[in-house]
């Protein structure tokens, strides 16, 4: 039972952290919880579908279906996160000043809410399909039974606990610092996801450049430990990254940072709404 708990929990950490961060980022926006909840449900439904068609997926694209699917999902999440950060750098302050009282703030808030809810959905879709497959395998093989299944469910519950812990940890930060903290969190999160996406493209053989291993710290902090997994999500830590992963990580960080600064500095073209 403990084994199953650990397997499922390990998969659930990433999604759990992302849900927690998104809940904290969108706190105070109208309908934020509804959006996040919808993202969770869509992700879980999608994960069940992916698990159901795992066989077909793994045979598609001459055996590289899984990899390309994962790479695509990750890339989409990176784009959504980047878009959110760039958008927030311009409108974040307005939003926090006016909150939901101004119609326009709500309307534009919903666009970024949609982006973040999709990030939640995509995270759950990707990690959840593995959990679903594992639990399905347990049930199908009938070799182990309820004990393992229960362990899996407990692992999921722990993943949800990670969401709550992340959320409550983040909202403890004073509001004037929260925006700064969450934009950096999202930037690092996006860079880490971009590096993971690159790794899947390498695995699929789509990218054959830069496969050299940058470093090996698996003796000190393996990815598979809980701490390794948390760092993997938050800052994109990997114990044996390829050169390509490193390059993609750095370029994503730099690009999002530069794009954010660029949008912040540009003079406004639209008349400012008076508060």
């Amino acid at each position, binding site marked *: 039972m403990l084994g199953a708990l650990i397997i499922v929990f390990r998969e659930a950490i990433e999604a759990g952290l992302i849900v927690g961060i998104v809940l904290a980022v969108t706190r105070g926006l109208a309908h934020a919880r509804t959006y996040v909840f919808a993202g969770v449900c869509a992700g879980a439904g999608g994960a069940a579908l992916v698990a159901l068609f*795992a066989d077909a997926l793994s045979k598609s694209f001459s055996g590289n279906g899984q990899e390309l699917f994962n790479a695509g999902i990750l890339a989409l999440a990176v*784009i959504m996160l980047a*878009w959110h950060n760039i958008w927030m750098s311009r409108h974040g302050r307005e939003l926090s000043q006016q909150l939901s009282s101004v119609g326009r703030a709500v309307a534009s808030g919903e666009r970024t809410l949609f982006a973040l809810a999709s990030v939640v959905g995509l995270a759950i879709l990707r990690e959840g399909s593995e959990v679903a*497959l*594992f639990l399905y395998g347990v049930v*199908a093989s009938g070799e182990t039974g309820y004990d393992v299944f229960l362990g899996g469910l407990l692992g999921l519950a722990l993943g949800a606990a990670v969401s709550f812990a992340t959320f409550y940890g983040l909202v403890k930060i004073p509001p004037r610092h929260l925006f700064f903290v969450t934009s950096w969190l999202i930037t690092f999160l996006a860079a880490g996801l971009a590096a993971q996406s690159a790794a899947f493209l390498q695995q699929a053989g789509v*990218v*054959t450049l830069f496969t050299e291993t940058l470093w090996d710290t698996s003796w000190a902090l393996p990815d598979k430990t809980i701490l390794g997994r948390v760092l993997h999500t938050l800052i994109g830590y990997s114990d*044996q990254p390829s050169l390509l992963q490193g390059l993609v990580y750095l370029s994503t960080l730099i690009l999002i940072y530069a794009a954010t600064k*660029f949008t912040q500095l540009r003079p406004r073209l639209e008349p400012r709404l008076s508060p």
Partner: protein
Amino acid sequence: MANSTYRCLVGVIIFAGCFMSLASASAGEVYTLTIKDHHFDPAQLTIKAETPATLIIKNLDASPEEFESKSLRIEKIIPANSEVSFALRALKAGRYKFVGEFHEDLAKGELIAE
């Protein structure tokens, strides 16, 4: 404003695209691993170093397995009663451990490149 954001995004995508060279490498020797009762057979597979190869994994069990190797940088789900094949990059001589993540205590093995 929306325009500049989209332009940024397009830039990001094009930049990412620069990293990709569309060449699928699946040539060289073909090796086969079998999973039965959550064990890999052979548990030690010797392959030629510095040569791209293809690895076929057959899962004879009724439950799915996830082939995972940090050093090979591969994680791949093998559905129940089916097989998958994938390209291995040219490996430096050495040992590359792998596990079946869903049954990690039983499903263990390593590739030996020499």
